[in-house]
């Protein structure tokens, strides 16, 4: 073959190879676009069918159709992947052929050309080189200079947390206590908890030693009021000899009241001689520790400098605020959470132990679910608009021990611990489910879809059943061993206050001012009582009586039973939204601005 002819043929072959590459590229591009436009798990058609399935759960044909469509979508996806893979090989092959032919073509055309003439003198070239090298160096240095001065250093702005130490400013706050009528030291106690007031130094020493030895036992939990609605969050207190008569106006049986500097809707929590609660506003979030005998604020600590805490708190409504969740105590530490998602731990002397932010909760009223602690863990029901989850944090470090994602909507209810056959379960209420979780690993044990709306009331437990209720939804009794619904009823439903169980009856307090009792086994209404005002504060069983405060501060005390046996009504003379705590033979009630201690004047 003549060389010229060879060159012509090679030119043609090069063009064919190039065209082959172009066609493969085009096909790959189309496949790629197809692949990008369809996502098998985001298929709209599939979504529609799955939505239909929700309303027709037993439609076998529909299930079959969904499966077929899902399979088809996946097959299409993997076929596209395969096509692209093969395309890549073909492209490589085409490129190799193209390069070989082109090289051969150029080799045939190869000739030694006449050497070019020098256009620039060496000296001139050197001069230009120096200039360009210097320019390149200057460019590097200028870039470095700009980078050095314009890089935002967020780490430099981050202030390392400093432990807050108690100082004299607390003396000023102590002086704000308005009423301290009497320091009670002679209460009869039936447990180890004592209400006497030892010498301050002795007390401090004893507390320090006790803390080291303290382990959170069931007995200690029941002796105290270590969480919202008392031990395990069940709304049942073991205290006795509690007052049944008081009057806020005259001060009768009001042992002391202390102004809480920063407002909050959370309820007081008591451990031994200390009362804990929190307050928050736009600028501060504070944990308070008071002497439960005197009402003196022993310390208050700000929850600040927490990594991840938002600079601006999330918007909340006035009836919830940033300090709606109650604290919990494990005998050595107090744990508090705020509407910002900040969770913090202090020891009983106010030393900050750890703090972290769980992420700003996406909650239009404000986060209100209270904390619970048990077995070295703090449980957080973190049901938000998206990314709901249940967390167990280490009490000593705050690190996540386990975390269980939840599919629930926002919930304002608090968790409850129950002991089922010797094993603890964490019971949560939210929309749409009431669920039980294993406390050691966060595994969901059972779940019943029965709730709807904005869930406020927390669950109750007794008689082997879990009870949950919510306004506009339902009241339900569930067997936590099997997850079976025992009964459901809609006669009276609470909106904010949680139900409580006692001796075969389930009590509720509603936002239309009704206190009602139901047969716990069947859900049948036993009695109802029309109160003066609506109930936000949850009813609590204490001293074998039902205590419940309406929002105007009137406490209704019932003798539990088949009749609405109202023992007493007492006016506090202050608004009450929080649930009272019971310790020793006293009641601790938080109003809008004050913490009251109610006890018999002796």
């Amino acid at each position, binding site marked *: 073959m003549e060389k010229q002819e060879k060159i012509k043929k090679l030119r043609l072959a090069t063009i064919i190879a190039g065209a082959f590459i172009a066609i493969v590229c085009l096909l790959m591009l189309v496949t790629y676009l197809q692949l990008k436009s369809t996502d098998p798990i985001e298929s709209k058609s599939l979504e529609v069918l799955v939505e239909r399935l929700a309303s027709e759960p037993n439609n076998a044909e529909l299930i079959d159709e969904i499966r077929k469509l899902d399979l088809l979508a996946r097959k299409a996806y993997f076929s596209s992947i395969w096509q692209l893979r093969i*395309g890549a090989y073909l492209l490589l092959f085409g490129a190799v052929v193209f*390069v070989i032919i082109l090289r051969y073509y150029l080799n045939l055309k190869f000739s030694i050309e006449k050497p070019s003439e020098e256009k620039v*003198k*060496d000296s001139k070239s*050197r001069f230009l080189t120096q200039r360009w090298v210097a320019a390149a160096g200057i460019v590097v240095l200028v870039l470095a200079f700009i980078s050095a001065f314009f890089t935002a250093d967020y780490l430099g702005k981050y202030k390392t947390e400093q432990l807050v130490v108690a100082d004299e400013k607390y003396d000023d706050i102590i002086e704000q206590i308005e009423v301290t009528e009497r320091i009670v030291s002679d209460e009869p106690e039936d447990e180890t908890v004592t209400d006497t007031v030892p010498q301050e130094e002795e007390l401090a020493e004893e507390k320090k030693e006790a803390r080291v030895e303290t382990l959170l036992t069931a007995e200690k939990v029941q002796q105290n009021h270590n969480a919202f609605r008392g031990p395990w969050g069940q709304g049942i207190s073991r205290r006795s000899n509690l007052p049944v008569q008081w009057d806020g106006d005259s001060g009768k049986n009001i042992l002391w009241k202390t102004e809480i500097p920063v407002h909050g809707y959370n309820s007081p929590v008591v451990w031994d001689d200390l009362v804990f609660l929190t307050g928050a506003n736009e600028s501060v979030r504070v944990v308070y520790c008071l002497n439960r005998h005197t009402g003196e604020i022993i310390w208050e600590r700000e929850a600040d400098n927490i990594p991840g805490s938002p600079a601006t708190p999330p918007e909340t409504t006035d009836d919830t605020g940033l300090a709606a969740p109650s604290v919990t105590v494990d005998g050595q530490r107090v744990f508090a959470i705020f509407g910002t998602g900040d969770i913090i731990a202090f020891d009983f002397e106010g030393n900050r132990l750890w703090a972290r932010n769980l992420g700003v909760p996406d909650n239009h009223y404000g986060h209100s679910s209270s904390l619970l602690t048990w077995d070295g863990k703090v449980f957080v029901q973190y049901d938000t608009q998206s990314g709901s989850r249940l967390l167990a944090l280490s009490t000593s470090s705050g690190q996540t021990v386990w975390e269980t994602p939840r599919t629930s909507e926002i919930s304002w209810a608090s968790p409850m611990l129950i002991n089922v056959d010797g094993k603890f379960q964490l019971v949560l209420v939210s929309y749409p489910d009431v669920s039980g979780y294993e406390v050691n690993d966060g595994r969901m044990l059972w779940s019943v879809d029965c709730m709807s709306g904005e869930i406020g009331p927390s669950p109750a437990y007794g008689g082997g059943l879990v009870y949950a209720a919510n306004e506009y939804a339902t009241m339900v009794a569930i067997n936590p061993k099997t997850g079976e619904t025992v009964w459901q009823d809609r006669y009276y439903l609470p909106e904010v206050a949680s139900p409580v169980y006692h001796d075969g009856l389930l009590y509720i307090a509603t936002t239309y001012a009704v206190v009602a009792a139901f047969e716990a086994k069947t859900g049948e209404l036993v009695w109802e009582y029309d109160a003066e005002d609506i109930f936000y504060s949850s009813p609590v069983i204490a001293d074998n009586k039902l205590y419940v405060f309406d929002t105007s501060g009137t406490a209704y005390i019932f003798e539990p039973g088949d009749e609405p046996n109202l023992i007493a009504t007492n006016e506090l003379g202050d608004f009450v939204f929080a649930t009272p705590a019971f310790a020793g033979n006293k009641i601790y009630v938080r109003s809008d601005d004050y913490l009251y201690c109610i006890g018999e004047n002796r």
Partner: protein
Amino acid sequence: MKNFFITTFIIFFLASLASETSAQPQRFPMPEFQTEYQKPEASTSEPRAASMEYVDTLVLILVLAFTIWLIFFKRSRRWILWVSVFALLYFGFYRLGCICAVGSVQNITLALFGTGYFIPLTVLAFFAIPLLVALFAGRVFCSTACPLGVIQDLVIFKPTKLAPWVQKALGLFPFIYLGLAVLFAATATDFIICRYDPFVGIFRLGAELHMIVLGIGILLIGMFVARPYCRFICPYGALLRVFSKFSRFHLSITPKDCINCHLCKDSCPFDAIDKPTDEKEIKPDRRNLKKFITYALLIPVFVFVGGWLISGTHKTLAKAHPDVYLANLLVESPELMQDTDNVDIETFMASDRTLEMLIEDAVVIQNKFRYGGWFLGGFIGLVIGITLLGQAVYKKRTIYEANREKCYSCGRCMKYCPVGNEQEKVELLSQEKQITN
């Protein structure tokens, strides 16, 4: 033909979109089987036998030895080409671009800076052997054994001559890149040479889109500007360049005495042939001496200023470290702690580390960059100073010869030399005559 290349570029660009997807299929959850279907257990393929690492080393040694023989004794460009194709297939497409002498600089650095990393002997061999060979025979490694170089070499079709000052200025970048790679490896931040290896995506038929585009882009540029990665980017090439400068032996264009026929003058696509010096240009000159002294005195200043400025960028550079980046991100936007779509944040949140611990670690890393920045900046200043100093040094040359720093020992120039290859030359000239006719 130029239009054809442009079309090809566009096609390659589009193809890169697809190859990215083809190589990295998206993962998504398995169907939730409610039937009795048993999901098969995931299986993983067996790792490559450890002994194969020695095979890699042996192949490298054989390729280098054979190339030396081809350069110094056989003097055959054709054979050099075929050996380089073999090395491309082996180290590129078979070994998928790893193990690689270019990236081994980072392994050495990481091992030297006591981060608990123990360097495999094979990696050490891949780092040291090409440098030792360069010390004795020039950049033989670049000629045939480096898949990154070879793939570029194969697509050189119409090389353009670049002005010396452009080459010198761009030639600084490999040293800067080398310095950065060492700093990043020393601080256990990243292996940037590997991360930004433009050809590994081609060898593996898939990479992130931008890397595929970069690789194909470099190859397309390489059609007109020969071996752009080797000349203006490759950090290992910067080391080889220094070693090769002092090489005991080196490829010579002519096998015997140069007759100064000038035929080889334009034969090198890399502009790596130095011409004979002009007698007039190298006359003793007071101005040159003054310039030499000035540059020599300025070198310490360049080193200090470079060190000071680059050290000042430590906060910027440190952000390449995942911990520093994450710490900055979380301090700047704490709400991201709940970003379940961010794998790094998810991983951090699931770990035992607190943000305080992360920030402490990040500050330590920043400080490492502060001190490392002094060395990097000083090094850059030194390179700039020496480059400028070199411009004031004149070396007398009477023949055309390969520049020891820049020459890749590809052997192209050899076939241009009429000395000693009379038979071949006659054939060549007769071919030329045929074409001309």
